[in-house]
């Protein structure tokens, strides 16, 4: 049994990661000794009954208490307000970093520029990882010359988020590989965890969907609807589809710019087909998803995040259109309908026509998605996370040694000509390597 410090948003924070934590932590706490650390003002009382909750101040964490644990697990996402304190601790106290987003420029922009009001750190960080180009574009971003999405794609700052960590957990290795932001720490890719609803209830949803058989067929978009959710492309595709009268689109969730979307709906003449439902209370989610026929879950650009919404769509056996990018690109081909980012409108229309031609094929796709959830079992996820954390902690000497290696390189560069430093660097490298991992014969034994 491990003693674990857990840092993540906790319920009732408006965050998918808080929901994730509410699912994971009871299972984890049943198998290990867990303290969930928080700097939130409030934690849901029912959650506190399940897991030990302790408070910390990001600027002055209780190191003595934290060091009583075997390992700390930090959850980072793109919300600077929610994850800023967690990052501040993780930066100083090495542990396992779970990346819920991979492109973290937005996060660092918020932390450095707004929370800490340290533009110098923001620019220095960009320069550290991307050289002069990073600093140059960072200055352009600050003056409004470059947009946030462009910065996120060019300068994801993933390595900054995990620098000095003992290990990194991602929910998509391929998405991380695509970013070319390979961390210096060991990486584990775990399937995003989700507990499927029991089969009997699922069968009830299928019956409800069967009773609501179209046409018109109900399309659903769901979740926090930021600009990268491609609502514009979806509306355009729907408007351009000759068979559009055979669909109805429900947009459920908080919109990044509701007035803009309403104008688009007006402009495209879709008022009769599109319904803005807003944020749905829990009770209405079930009604909405159990009677929908096709979900649209596009992301572009992706921040590399796994999608809780996708898990929910599969839980309801809903066929789904997703963008072939980031984490989504790693989903099983037969359980999803892919949309290419560069051909969004055409691909969406093609899928909608295919749906009309053979609704049963899409129902089968949704069924396969439901089956795919078995890979995402919560218990397996927790065990894999702990196993990885244990093995990463065993390699913890690498953290101070890597820090030392950087310091040596920096120091030697200032006073020793490269021609004279070769021998010293080689000797130091050998010793540092052994300090990291021991001697070869010991490792073998």
């Amino acid at each position: 049994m491990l003693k674990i410090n857990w840092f993540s948003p906790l319920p009732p924070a408006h965050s998918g990661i808080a929901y994730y934590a509410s699912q994971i932590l009871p299972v984890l706490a049943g198998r290990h000794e867990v303290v969930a650390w928080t700097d939130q003002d409030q934690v849901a009382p029912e959650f506190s009954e399940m897991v030990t909750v302790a408070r910390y101040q990001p600027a002055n964490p209780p190191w003595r208490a934290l060091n009583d644990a075997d390992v700390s697990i930090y959850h980072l996402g793109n919300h600077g307000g929610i994850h800023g304190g967690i990052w501040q601790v993780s930066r100083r106290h090495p542990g396992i970093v779970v990346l819920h987003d991979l492109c973290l420029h937005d996060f660092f922009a918020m932390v450095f520029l707004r929370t800490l009001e340290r533009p110098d750190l923001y620019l220095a960080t960009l320069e550290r990882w991307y050289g002069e180009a990073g600093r140059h574009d960072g200055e352009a971003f600050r003056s409004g010359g470059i947009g946030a999405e462009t910065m996120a794609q060019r300068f994801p700052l993933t390595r900054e988020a995990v620098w000095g960590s003992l290990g990194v957990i991602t929910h998509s290795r391929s998405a991380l590989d695509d970013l070319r932001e390979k961390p210096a720490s060991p990486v584990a890719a775990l399937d995003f965890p989700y507990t499927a609803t029991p089969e009997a209830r699922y069968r009830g949803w299928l019956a409800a969907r069967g009773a609501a058989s179209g046409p018109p067929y109900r399309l659903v978009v769901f979740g926090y609807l930021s600009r990268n959710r491609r609502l514009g492309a979806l509306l355009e595709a729907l408007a351009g589809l000759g068979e559009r009268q055979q669909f109805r689109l429900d947009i459920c969730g908080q919109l990044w710019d509701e007035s803009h979307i309403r104008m688009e709906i007006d402009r495209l003449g879709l008022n009769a087909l599109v319904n803005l439902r807003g944020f749905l209370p829990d009770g209405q989610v079930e009604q909405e998803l159990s009677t929908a026929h096709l979900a649209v879950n596009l992301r572009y650009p992706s921040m590399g995040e796994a999608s809780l919404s996708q898990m929910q769509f599969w839980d309801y056996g809903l066929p789904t259109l997703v963008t072939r990018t980031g984490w989504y690109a790693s989903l099983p081909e037969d359980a999803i309908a892919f949309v290419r980012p560069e051909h969004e409108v055409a691909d969406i229309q093609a899928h909608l026509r295919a749906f009309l031609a053979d609704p049963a094929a899409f129902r089968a796709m949704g069924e396969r998605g439901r089956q795919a959830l078995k890979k995402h079992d919560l218990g397996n996820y927790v065990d894999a996370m702990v196993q990885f954390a244990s093995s990463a902690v065993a390699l913890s000497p690498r953290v101070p040694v890597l820090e030392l290696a950087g310091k040596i390189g920096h120091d030697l560069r200032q006073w020793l000509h490269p021609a004279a430093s070769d021998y010293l660097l080689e000797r130091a490298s050998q010793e540092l390597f052994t300090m990291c991992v021991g001697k070869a014969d010991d490792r073998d034994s």
Partner: protein
Amino acid sequence: MKVLILTSGVPFIRGGAEILAGGLCDAVCAAGHQAEILTLPFQSCPPSRIPEQMLACRLLDVTETCSMRIDRVIGLKFPAYLVPHPRKVIWLLHQHRTAYELWNHPAAGDLIHYPDGPVVRDAIRLADRTFIPEASSIYTLSRNVTERLQRCSGIASEPLYNPPAGASLFYKSTPQDYFFFPSRINPVKRQWLVIQALALCREPVCVRFAGEADNEAQQAECAKAVRELRLSERVEWLGMVTEERKRDCYANSLGVVFPPVDEDYGYVTLEAMLSSKPVITCVDSGGPLEFVVDGQTGLVAGATPQALAEAMDALWGDRRRAATMGETGLQRYRDLKITWENVVEKLLC
């Protein structure tokens, strides 16, 4: 033989380790060899400094001096014993204890208070496991250190006892009304425990403390406790004393009180035995327990103020018993045959 004794030290701090290195150097020279002590400065705070010093040790080359081979290196303390040498033996005084059994000690733990404490701790542990076995022979200061090394790092070693400096000069005199406690003043030596015990004594027990504090705050803390407990009449702070004065203090004492936390060895115990004085120590004091036979050469008390107070009261109130224990202690020291000749023979063989 050219023999280099490698140790680490904190500038301006002198304690048992420095005395031992000096004694060893003298003994090696007395055996007809050339010997020098190389003391590397060591700074443990902040923890990030520690790996730097470990690496510095690993990069040192002490295989020869002015084209003359150094025949034997004897490593004593962390991180100096990490220095590589083809004919190195280690006579381990102790590992970096706050990375091991003192990691979470409420008073002595230091690394545990830093965010990078755990990773530095693990780096120290790995380096010890990796580099200590490079030595051709591994001895330790005491059975206590041998057991710790086995328990913490899985490395076998053999205890090798040495006499305190100036062993032949200790003597016995008529006991006066005080217990003697010579040691550096710090939380691990537990002067504070003795002060608290004094407040609970039923007899008018007095204690003379000799030695300097590791820092002013620790000295001030002890002084404050004495004031608050109204013990000023029964406590005397001698500060740093000469070796001669120290021997006098031993000789004239009723007994010695020495209750450190898991002491590696503890010259204080041996010096008390050489002065024919009983030793009061605690069940968790480590090294002294290898020499103090409870009820015969001293008393082993629980590590609480009350238990320690009862032990001090017992000897204060029964001087004849105290004297008998002291004589038995001297005889036990002689029976153990603790000599430098034996140490040098083992380390240079």
